């Protein structure tokens, strides 16, 4: 890998970064440090400002305010030089459907000034990597969503980038396709490629990210590794109780003192506890008989919902 250009191996540094569209503030003063070799995630609901942030980092969207340094360079001034060292997988695929799979890679490589012969070799190598080698000569149009996504990821690797930006890499894919993408991204991470990704899938963030920030309404509301976030914003275990009857509310009062935090949902009650089985025993000791009981480990989803709320954002 090319040596990181900044001290401390920080490849991306944002301070008070702001993006406004007219009067609307999409990114509202965020501070971010991404270190060389790590997988860094932006987790957040729709409209949180993840893509706006990624586009500023990708040097296609000038920051409205604040500081942004990428590999020691200033996106306002050094856009082309920075973009030469980035790999970008945008939220929506923008492959050319009329070209073949291979041509999509080779024509894109040429935008980086890569010689034709090298471009062909690299295309072959990358198509192997994303398991599309047999489709090299076929048009992109009929490919499945997962195949197109893998091709976009391969395209992002064609210039051997120092940082790969992945905006919702698996949104809209079926489970098999998602797992294949994850596995490929995990391989890249193992090879030391710095990954920056956005997602609203908790499992994706838990699987791939060393560190992440939770964004909501253009701000960062929490930051840390998946483990530390779960420790800080949730408990070790969660007990999900379902009571038969009209409302769960009626039972909530009877659970006082059983958990660090109790959340009452229309169809179930969540107990945030350290010891799930202990809490269940206590519930039964109080002569309560829930229709169903589930003890599970706390997940990033609990953190996410705790921090960004359960209201649907579309």
């Amino acid at each position, binding site marked *: 890998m090319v040596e990181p250009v900044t001290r401390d191996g920080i490849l991306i540094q944002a301070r008070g970064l702001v993006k406004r569209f007219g009067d609307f503030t999409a990114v509202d003063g965020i501070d971010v440090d991404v270190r060389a070799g790590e997988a860094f995630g932006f987790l957040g609901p729709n409209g949180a400002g993840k893509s706006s942030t990624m586009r500023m980092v*990708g040097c*296609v969207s000038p920051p409205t305010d604040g500081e942004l340094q990428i590999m020691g360079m200033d996106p306002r001034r050094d856009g082309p030089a920075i*973009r030469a060292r980035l790999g970008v997988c945008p939220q929506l695929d923008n492959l050319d459907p009329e070209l073949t799979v291979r041509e999509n890679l080779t*024509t894109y490589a*040429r935008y980086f*000034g890569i*010689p034709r012969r090298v471009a062909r070799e690299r295309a072959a190598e990358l198509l192997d990597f994303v398991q599309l080698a047999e489709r090299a000569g076929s048009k992109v149009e009929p490919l499945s969503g997962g195949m197109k996504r893998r091709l976009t990821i391969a395209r992002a690797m064609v210039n*051997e980038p120092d940082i790969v930006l992945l905006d919702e890499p698996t949104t809209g894919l079926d489970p098999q396709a998602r797992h294949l993408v994850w596995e490929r991204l995990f391989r890249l991470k193992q*090879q030391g490629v710095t990954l920056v990704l956005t997602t609203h899938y908790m499992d994706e963030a838990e699987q791939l990210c060393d560190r992440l920030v939770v964004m909501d309404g253009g701000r960062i509301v929490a930051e840390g590794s998946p483990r530390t976030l779960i420790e800080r914003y949730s408990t070790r275990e969660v007990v999900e109780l379902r009571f038969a009857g009209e409302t769960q509310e009626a039972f909530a009062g009877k659970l006082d003192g059983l958990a660090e935090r109790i959340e009452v949902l229309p169809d179930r009650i969540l107990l945030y506890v350290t010891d799930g089985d202990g809490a269940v025993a206590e519930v039964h000791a109080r002569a309560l008989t829930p229709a169903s009981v589930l003890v599970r480990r706390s997940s990033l989803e609990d953190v996410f919902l705790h921090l960004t709320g359960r209201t649907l954002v579309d």
Partner: protein
Amino acid sequence: MALLEATAATRPQAGLVGRFPALAVLEYNLVAYRRTWRAGVFSSFLLPLLTMVGFGVGVGAYVEAPVAGVPYLDFLVPGLIASTALQVAIGESTWPVLGNFEWIKIYFAQASTPLRVADILGGQLGFVLFRVLTSSLAFLLVAAAFGTLHSPWALATLPLVALIAAAVAVPVFAYSSSVRSDSYLALLFRFAVIPMTLFAGVFFPVESLPMVLRWLAYASPLWHGVDLCRAATLGVAPAWSVPGHLLYLAAWVAVGWWLAHSAFRRRLVV
């Protein structure tokens, strides 16, 4: 895997494409064109052939009096070369540009690479010029075969059609990148291309037009192109001064480039 062996050697910036990144955009367009070029070449020759037969043998038989001192077909050919250049240039700067923003979205992919807006614009213009030059060359060959070219200056029509093409394509880039639906593109054909083709001296000298229409013809880039091409194929002096024509067309390119660059920027850098 060699993914991580990124060294100076695997980050080549040298070579022609390294120095002129717009060439990479042109190359992309040529790769895409490979799929349809046969049909393109066929129609490039078919159109002039039909013209020669239709106008030369058909209409020409009715227009017995020479126009501007030459047989009607010989008068018409340079005008058609210029107006075909116009049609091809506008065809290639409307739907493809709208599509690259709205449908394929390839411009957004290109903008995320080291390419600058000017490179994307330059590569697209390069492809327009390629299409115009190849179809004009076909027209010129057919015209020569029918003996309608009077002077070796006819070769000058090639750089001239490139200039005409740039003069119309670049401002049209600005238009096509500012509209969101292709119904606006049809308006351009109805209100600019067709009137220009009919009244800018392609089929008859503009001197036979009433004064108001004549000035409209003078204002259009096509008339300047037609006058220059006609002077070239007939080997006569143009109606206007040559530098005057060239400067007027160059002004369309310059103003158009400024408009197109800001329009592309508005879409690609937000």
